[in-house]
């Protein structure tokens, strides 16, 4: 009985070190589409940071607004100066939690649906969001994928009426981060 107690205590003490597993990347991609039938507007950021904790479900993404690449110089200038004001609001951050963590087995390869809820900060405005995505577990790599839409007005991004047939009221955002285990 005493032995059993000791084993139980040891197990209890060891558990955090077993369970605490963090994954991260500094080279994820975040892209968006905010064009219309009149014009394509696409931006791509290849240096997104993502970190998540497989035991607590805490997840965080961060990008530098100036890091978005565009096909046209003018588009990039307008994006930074008029819409996102990247000198003032240099970063965009998502901080949240994986709410269906119990459905993901990080030890078994496969694709798992993921539900994430948290605060998304864009253009200095913080808003609560919830979205569905996927985790692709491949050994010690976890690829986090999500696609969702935001309403520009929600984040105080003003589109002048002169260009409102070129710029959509919403932006479709795609996230693709290949995370490696942090040892």
């Amino acid at each position, binding site marked *: 009985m005493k032995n059993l107690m000791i084993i139980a205590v040891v197990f209890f003490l060891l558990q955090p070190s077993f369970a605490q597993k963090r994954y991260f990347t*500094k080279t994820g991609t975040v892209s968006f589409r905010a064009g219309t039938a009149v014009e394509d507007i696409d931006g791509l950021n*290849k240096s997104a940071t993502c970190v998540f904790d497989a035991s607590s479900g805490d997840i965080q993404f961060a990008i530098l607004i*100036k*890091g978005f690449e565009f096909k*046209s110089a003018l588009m990039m200038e307008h994006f930074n100066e008029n819409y996102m004001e990247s000198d003032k609001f240099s970063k965009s951050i998502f901080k949240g939690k994986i709410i269906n963590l119990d459905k993901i087995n990080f030890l078994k390869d496969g694709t798992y649906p993921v539900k994430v809820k948290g605060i998304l900060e864009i253009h200095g405005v913080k808003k609560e969001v919830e979205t569905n995505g996927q985790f692709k577990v491949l050994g010690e790599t976890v690829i986090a994928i999500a696609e969702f839409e935001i309403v520009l007005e929600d984040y105080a991004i003003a589109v002048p009426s002169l260009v409102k047939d070129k710029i959509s009221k919403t932006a479709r955002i795609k996230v693709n981060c290949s995370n490696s285990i942090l040892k």
Partner: protein
Amino acid sequence: MPTWKKILIGFSLIAFFGAAAGYYLYNKKPADVRRLQPDLSVTANFLILAFNSDEAAANLKYLDKVIAVKGIIADIKIDSSTGQASVILDSGDPLSAVTCSFYNDEIGAVQKLSKGTEVVIKGKCTGKLMDVVLNNCSIIQ
């Protein structure tokens, strides 16, 4: 030639050049950073030190500038599915490094690099997250 004709020709010339300039600007691609001379040359250690000690001042000095950064390669990330290549330069600070994201067609040059060797990378500084990030990178040396 009557005056009204001159005025008409003058106006149509202005309209034509205006439209041409507008068209040119509209279709202008972002500058190819590979063809630009770096504004500044620094070591990865110095760059991180500058951002750690005073981020606002470092932003003024480096943000949106083409810089050449010399450092030791800590990691090379190549994602064959997206054709994306990045190099992480060691800065002596375990908490931050310099992340350099390359032009997609520079992937061949990045593949020839190896960890632990010294390299000089040119790119556009986009600011600091955890790392200082360079965009549109290519290898100088």
